[in-house]
């Protein structure tokens, strides 16, 4: 059994809690003194650094929401100045404005350390070749896994997404042993390979998949493992916390969340009350060591639970279950977060279409497909096909700019999409996991 950081990964549970308490107390003290945003927040909630006497007192602290990041766009919530920021990643926000996450050199190191531990727990290390098929760039997936895999001594093939035939060819030719991507993309790669006469199981050296950034199921894991002849591990993370950070170990029984970096709680999303282990609720994370963008009780919107007991692998850190769903209407399409409110925002900025729309998501050849149906605006209806095609293109390219993924656009007659009283159900998700 290999560990990347054996002392920390097997730290006795009570010692870990003690460490977490010390880190939490330091964090609250720092935020109160150096972050105008959190100073205000803490004062409003009536909790001062001296009120934290035990790890359990974390529940007294105020939450941070995704909207707090948007409201403080781009970097007003940061706790360091620009000269200390080593990198930025940007994800799309719920409406209009994106969410910017900054990292100091120390933050990048923490992130890489977290992935080094996790990838080692998946049995990877020197001698492995990892194909990183998450998007590189503003999205955290590509660069995150890239540096994590480099740190453990693996050879990295920085493929990014797209050009699937090339992905298959290089996987075979470079004797790739591990891949990181979304589970649906891996199935698409396998399917493309079949068409090219390359069977992943028989014709490549692939043995491990580090899969995440979208919801998937145990059923899908079984299918991937059987069809591709590999071990498939779930990976969790969100850009606000750094990016993908935690994977399952070889026991495949929940992702190990490194407690010296992140303090996790599960709450009832309605009441905000903290729930017991094994109870389903919303994942709330406090970043214990981050410098540029530390977050106090960040509400991820992800529904999961924390497992009881110590893992058979010997790692003592808490384990969280696979993500069951969302507390909001966020969609994950090809690994990218999409909020219906973003689509609404785009459509409202275009005169010739109405404000009613419907999003239909399904899976074509293993890849997510998003169709946005929008009503043409009767008053602006042009009878020239060319005008209508241009309108369609304009809606499509504006959506792509804002969402960072392409969407099919369909123009429909006014009054034909469903109307809602109260909360609108804009999304039809036909994907089966």
């Amino acid at each position, binding site marked *: 059994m290999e560990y990347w950081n054996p002392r920390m990964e097997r730290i006795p549970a009570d010692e870990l809690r003690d460490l977490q308490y010390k880190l939490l107390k330091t964090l609250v003290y720092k935020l109160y003194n150096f972050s105008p945003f959190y100073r205000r927040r803490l004062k409003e909630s009536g909790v001062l650094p001296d009120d934290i006497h035990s790890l359990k007192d974390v529940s007294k602290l105020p939450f941070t929401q995704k909207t707090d990041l948007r409201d403080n766009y781009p970097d007003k919530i940061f706790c360091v100045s620009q000269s200390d920021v080593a990198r930025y990643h940007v994800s799309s926000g719920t409406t209009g404005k994106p969410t910017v996450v900054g990292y100091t050199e120390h933050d990048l190191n923490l992130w890489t350390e977290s992935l080094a531990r996790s990838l080692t727990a998946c049995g990877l290390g020197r001698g492995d070749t990892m194909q990183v098929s998450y998007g590189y760039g503003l999205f955290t997936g590509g660069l995150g896994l890239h540096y994590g895999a480099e740190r453990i001594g693996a050879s990295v093939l920085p493929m990014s997404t797209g050009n699937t035939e090339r992905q298959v060819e290089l996987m075979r030719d470079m004797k790739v042993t591990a891949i990181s991507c979304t589970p649906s993309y891996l199935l698409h790669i396998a399917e493309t390979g079949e068409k090219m006469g390359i069977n992943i199981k028989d014709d490549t050296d692939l043995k491990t998949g580090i899969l995440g950034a979208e919801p998937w199921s145990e059923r899908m894991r079984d299918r991937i493992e059987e069809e591709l002849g590999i071990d498939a591990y779930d990976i969790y993370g969100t850009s606000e916390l750094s990016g993908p950070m935690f994977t399952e170990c070889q026991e495949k029984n929940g992702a190990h969340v490194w407690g010296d970096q992140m303090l996790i709680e599960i709450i009832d999303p309605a009441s905000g009350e903290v729930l017991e282990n094994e109870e389903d609720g919303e994942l709330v994370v406090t970043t214990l060591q981050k410098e540029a963008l530390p977050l106090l009780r960040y509400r991820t919107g992800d529904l999961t639970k924390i497992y009881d007991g110590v893992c058979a692998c010997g790692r003592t850190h808490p384990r969280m279950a696979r993500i069951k769903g969302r507390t909001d209407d966020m969609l994950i399409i090809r690994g990218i977060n999409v909020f219906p409110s973003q689509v609404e925002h785009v459509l409202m900025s275009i005169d010739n279409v109405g404000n009613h729309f419907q999003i239909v998501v399904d899976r074509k050849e293993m890849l997510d497909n998003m169709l946005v149906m929008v009503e*043409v605006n*009767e008053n602006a*209806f*042009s*009878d*020239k*096909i*060319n005008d*209508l*095609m241009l309108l369609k293109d304009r809606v499509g390219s504006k959506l792509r700019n804002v969402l960072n993924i392409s969407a099919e656009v*369909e*123009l*429909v*007659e*006014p*009054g*034909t999409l469903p109307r809602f009283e109260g909360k609108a159900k804009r999304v039809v998700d036909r994907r089966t996991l």
Partner: protein
Amino acid sequence: MANYAIKQISIFLENKPGRLAEVAEAMNEAKINILAFSIAEAGDFGVVRMLVNKPDEACKKLHEKGFTVSLTRVLGIKMKDEPGGLYEIAKILGDSDVNIDYAYAYSGTSGAVFILRVSDLELAIEKITEREVELIEDTLFE
């Protein structure tokens, strides 16, 4: 003075079965005659264009039935029964910098008629009437 700007009805339609029949049914109910008819398709939607005997009434009726409809002014050109007729018109318009947005033809009782939507209707009428080309008058349909 003759009015050569003919009112054409345009309807936005999704490619759904039965939708076209509903247009015809609405016209039938209102006792409106369809004189010329064309469909331009673009994948999941299309635009139906037609000339009718009572365009304002037809427009109102279709709107009531929930269709997305607009009135557009077009030209109707009577085609001479000789080669090069189409070329002549295209050349007249081209020389005057008038673009043809779209065109379709139909067979009327007195021969073929060519329907055009152009970028500058007034200029097109002016240039065409200078020549020996016969334009259809709006009143012909009423």
